[in-house]
């Protein structure tokens, strides 16, 4: 078991002929992901790394069962590509692309909700069900199978923490990047609910950051969870009112502060690590109980 994607997930790569699309198609294949098709308008009929390329997602769906798609599509065209996959009936759409206009993101999320599909991202590294399926861009060697679910807003920080877990022999069930943009498809609660139900997941790592109130919202659900949650919130030392890269990571008017998030999480029963590399130690302690 794992959540959202597993060894049976058939993937289509949108933008498979581009530089990033091609590079990461090879990486995903090396990880064992079942890529059954690629799409690239005007390149239909070609074959890349043994994978058939189609002009559209509809065309790919006529020839394969498609469970998920991943977008390596430049921002101005990402809305069209995401809607294309959703309209064709693809139920999991992973949008790696960053810098997508927020109005495009709102349009995609509205349609995804209507067709009852899951959008991961935008501006995400993707999703990895360790040892089974990697959809996205994280480096392969840091993800090993195990019982820890990881959900995050930020990419490289997730590699940092998963890398530390793996270095200490702690594997992961599924690792999900929700994306760093203001408007993304998943909430912490959406993911936590699935981890709670997943028999393979024994503990959950939540990686948040300052700004917004996603971590505070998550705390409401963590109270009800039977599985332990360990959290790390980046940005303890960030000065107020300054944009720290992610559109979400800005502290304004006393909302979304580090202290507020830590308090909410702690009261909900989560353990909060002060530094990213403290997470494996706490997880070990919890799993040993």
């Amino acid at each position, binding site marked *: 078991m794992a959540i959202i994607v597993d060894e049976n997930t058939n993937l289509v790569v949108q933008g498979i002929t581009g530089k990033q699309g091609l590079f990461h198609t090879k990486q995903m294949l090396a990880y064992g992901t079942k890529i059954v098709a690629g799409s690239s308008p005007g390149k239909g009929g070609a074959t890349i790394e043994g994978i058939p390329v189609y002009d559209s997602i509809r065309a790919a769906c006529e020839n394969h069962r498609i469970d998920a798609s991943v977008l390596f599509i430049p921002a101005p065209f990402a809305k069209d590509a995401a809607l294309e996959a959703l309209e064709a009936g693809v139920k999991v759409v992973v949008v790696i692309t960053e810098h997508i*206009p*927020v109005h495009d993101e709102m*349009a995609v999320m*509205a349609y995804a909700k209507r067709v009852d599909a899951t959008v991961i991202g935008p501006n995400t590294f993707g999703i990895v069900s360790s040892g089974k399926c990697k959809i996205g861009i994280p*480096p392969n060697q840091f993800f090993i199978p195990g019982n820890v679910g990881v959900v995050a807003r930020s990419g490289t920080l997730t590699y940092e923490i998963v890398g530390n877990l793996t270095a200490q022999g702690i594997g992961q069930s599924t690792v999900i990047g929700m994306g760093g943009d203001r408007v993304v498809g998943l909430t912490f609660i959406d993911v936590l609910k699935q981890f709670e139900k997943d028999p393979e997941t024994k503990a959950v790592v939540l990686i948040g950051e300052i700004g917004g109130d996603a971590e505070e919202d998550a705390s409401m659900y963590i109270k009800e969870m039977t599985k332990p949650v360990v959290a790390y919130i980046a940005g303890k030392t960030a000065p107020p009112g300054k944009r720290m*890269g992610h559109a979400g990571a800005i502290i304004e008017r006393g909302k979304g502060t580090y202290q507020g998030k830590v308090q909410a999480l702690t009261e909900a029963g989560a353990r909060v690590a002060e530094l990213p590399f403290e997470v494996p130690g706490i997880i070990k302690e919890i799993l040993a109980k």
Partner: protein
Amino acid sequence: MKMFEYMGKELFSKFGLPVPKGKMVTNPDEAAAVAAEIGAPVVIKSQVLSGKRGKAGGIKFADTPEEAKAAAQELLGMTIQGLPVEILLVEQKLQIDKELYLSITIDNAARKPVLIASAHGGMDIEEVAEELIIKKQIDVELGMQGFIARDVVRKMGISLDTPHGKELVKVITALYKIFIQKDADLVEINPLVFSGDKVIAADAKVTIDDEALYRQKDLPRVEERTATEKAAHDLGLSFVELDGDIGVMANGAGITMGTLDALSYYGGKPANFLDAGGGTGEEGTAKALELILARNPKAIIINIFGGITRCDDVANAFASVKKKTGIPVPVVIRLVGTNQEAGRAILKEVGIEAYDFMQDAAMKAVELSKA
């Protein structure tokens, strides 16, 4: 991108949303001329990208063109929250019978636009009691239908059978059109005023989504960042100046914040936040180091966990910059991820042994900053 009030009002005007008669000026003589043209009394408003202009004395009234000139003279010498006043808006002084509040922004959690309205405007909306504020999420597929606008007006306690009620419906509809067509993050009118039978936007706050500027070519451009921050942005770097002495470069906002947290934990003080993003080449790395060195740090930490970023690219860029310009302070590098072995070999050639773990690198950087 935040827009100046006068730009926001020009935009409102184009969409048929009523604004006071007025003009933007940049010197006292122009202010007098505009006052004469539109007819005194006038209000003269400093154009700065900050709220609280009124409290800071950035808004003045004048009964004659001569008074307008004197007021403009005074305002143009001011700074408001560190921002110099260089532009003024001279407008007819409105008869104000009632002040209201209206805005549309994005509800991140709902992933939808949200219309926020109150019959009690003029003050900071955060100071208005919650029960006096109407919030209506808008379904983007449905758009701003007449019935939605009418129901918001009803909830504001304003009769739809009055000129004000009918005008308000038009204002809400126009504001939503601007919000959608111009890729706005925020359109805000505070106060929206009843003046006789009319409904007029006495202020305009418009913020456009930076990511959509490429397709909003007809909008004017406003540069809010410092020259240094802009130079960084143009190279895909996200740079914020802090007040410590350890230069920081990492890839990704989260890991950069994590690096700052780790440095502080070990007793160090970061001099900056620099997120080099996903794929910085030699030019970007050179610029990043230049920005960091300009802060005169005692040590530098580079923390790279390569996913889409390849370690050998980072190492090559760093080695090349080091050979060309030399780097006068000690540098600690943590380098892991995609192509890490190749990257480390390149660093070895320029005399740098990369660290495996962030904590070791952070501790070393703090130690060096105190040496």
